[in-house]
């Protein structure tokens, strides 16, 4: 794992600069606009959590994915590499934002530590890094095209559904179930967090299986 991380740091220096720039700009923007720093931190984290995908797609674009796969490492280690890159990036950005906010806006800028342990972070980690990871590892750039098109189709579909309220027999039950889940998880933070962690853990073997299926 250490060798893989070093390899990426050596080979993708430019790509690693981007999240730092985003974090820096976010921190400065928080100062200039007067908005709570947490708003820009969320935006920066979104970008940083996309970074492991970007690194994998960069390898694919340059034709070096084969070289990565030929190395004497297991698929699990490659999955671990991408997750660690996301976590380290997120940590780095959070620290950078925190330091900038403290320097520029002074202590007390974060209104309590509660903000920093919000399950929202886990949702971001899950939805931006872990859920799309099997897609990136299995289909690369094509997978992301599929994800983006799928998101548009889903958005369009949901908009259309709104126009046909009551027309579809499953709709009421489905939406009730969704609303119940949202209510329940909001009211039961521990169960919510545990469920999120379980979902996150499920993404790892899925990513490994996806990577094993990739032919280069």
């Amino acid at each position, binding site marked *: 794992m250490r060798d893989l991380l070093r390899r990426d740091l050596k080979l993708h220096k430019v790509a690693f600069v981007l999240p730092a720039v985003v974090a820096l700009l976010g921190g400065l923007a928080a100062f200039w606009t007067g908005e709570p720093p947490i708003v820009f931190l969320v935006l920066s984290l979104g970008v940083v959590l996309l970074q492991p995908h970007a690194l994998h797609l960069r390898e694919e674009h*340059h034709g070096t994915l*084969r070289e990565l796969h030929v190395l004497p490492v297991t698929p699990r280690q490659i999955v671990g590499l991408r997750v660690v890159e996301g976590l380290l990036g997120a940590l780095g950005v959070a620290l950078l934002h925190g330091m900038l906010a403290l320097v520029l806006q002074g202590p007390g800028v974060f209104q309590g530590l509660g903000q920093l342990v919000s399950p929202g972070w886990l949702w971001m980690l899950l939805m931006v890094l872990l859920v799309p990871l099997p897609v990136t590892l299995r289909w690369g750039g094509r997978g992301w095209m599929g994800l983006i098109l799928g998101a548009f189709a889903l958005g369009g579909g949901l908009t259309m559904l709104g126009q046909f309220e009551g027309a579809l027999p499953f709709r009421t039950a489905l939406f009730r179930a969704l609303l119940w889940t949202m209510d329940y998880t909001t009211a039961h933070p521990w169960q919510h967090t545990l469920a999120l962690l379980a979902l996150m853990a499920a993404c790892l073997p899925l990513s490994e299986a996806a990577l094993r299926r990739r032919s280069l």
Partner: protein
Amino acid sequence: MPEPLLRLRGLTKRYRAFTLQEASLDLPPGSLMGLLGPNGAGKTTLLKAILGLVRLDAGTLTFQGRDLAQHGAELRRRIAFVPDTPAFQPGARLATLKEAHAPFYPGFDETRWKGLMADFGLDPRRKAQELSLGQRTRFALTLALAQDWDLLVLDEPTTGLDPVFRRELLQRFSEALDERRAILFSTHITSDLEDRADFVTFVRDGQVVLSDTQEAIKGRWGVVKGGLDLLDEPVRRAFKGLRETPHGFEALTDNLPGTRAHFGEQALVERPSLEDLLVLLGRKAHA
């Protein structure tokens, strides 16, 4: 024969338009095996299977007596690979690329790498994007040859190299072999392997059609050239490959003494070159 360093049994990989069908071969230590076949025959797929780059539909691969599918990460430390079109991160310097590659291979020899870089006319300060295909191949060769490998897998490494360097390189391969090492060399440049490869494996249409020592192949197989009047149905069927022209035929037999005895002075029967085998093997009668 010693225990094979690499053993393939029934390797099958199905794509939409192509299938590698039940490929089997044994590569003993201390030997150089040439993998010959026309473009699209399945040579690269076979090599990719060995390197774990494709997910097999069937078959087993053992290296040093151990299952490559189960112990791939550990065993690949002893396998060096040079692809047909090496790719590197464009902005990275060659020295950086080496630093990124070497830690994965415990026996990587820095001194040998520097020597190879000098011998191959490469400057470590150059960036990968500045290199031609031939130079990229040379660089990939420095990385592979500086490893402490037991198996060197080469996928058409001499394509894009000038003849002088190619000859030197082939000499290096021969010198690098010892009783624990073996080389698997895929190419369609048959002259690279003539009198140099201990074993030759022919792949055609996704099948291993012949795999044996070069000595045995040349002792048993023959090229027959003669007039069309010599061809009848039993003769056609007996040939392993046949090419007919308006003036005569050229065919491949796996029974050199028998064919000589059958045709006598009526046809020219001689030992085949690897190119003869590559051109004629598996070529259907009436083609």
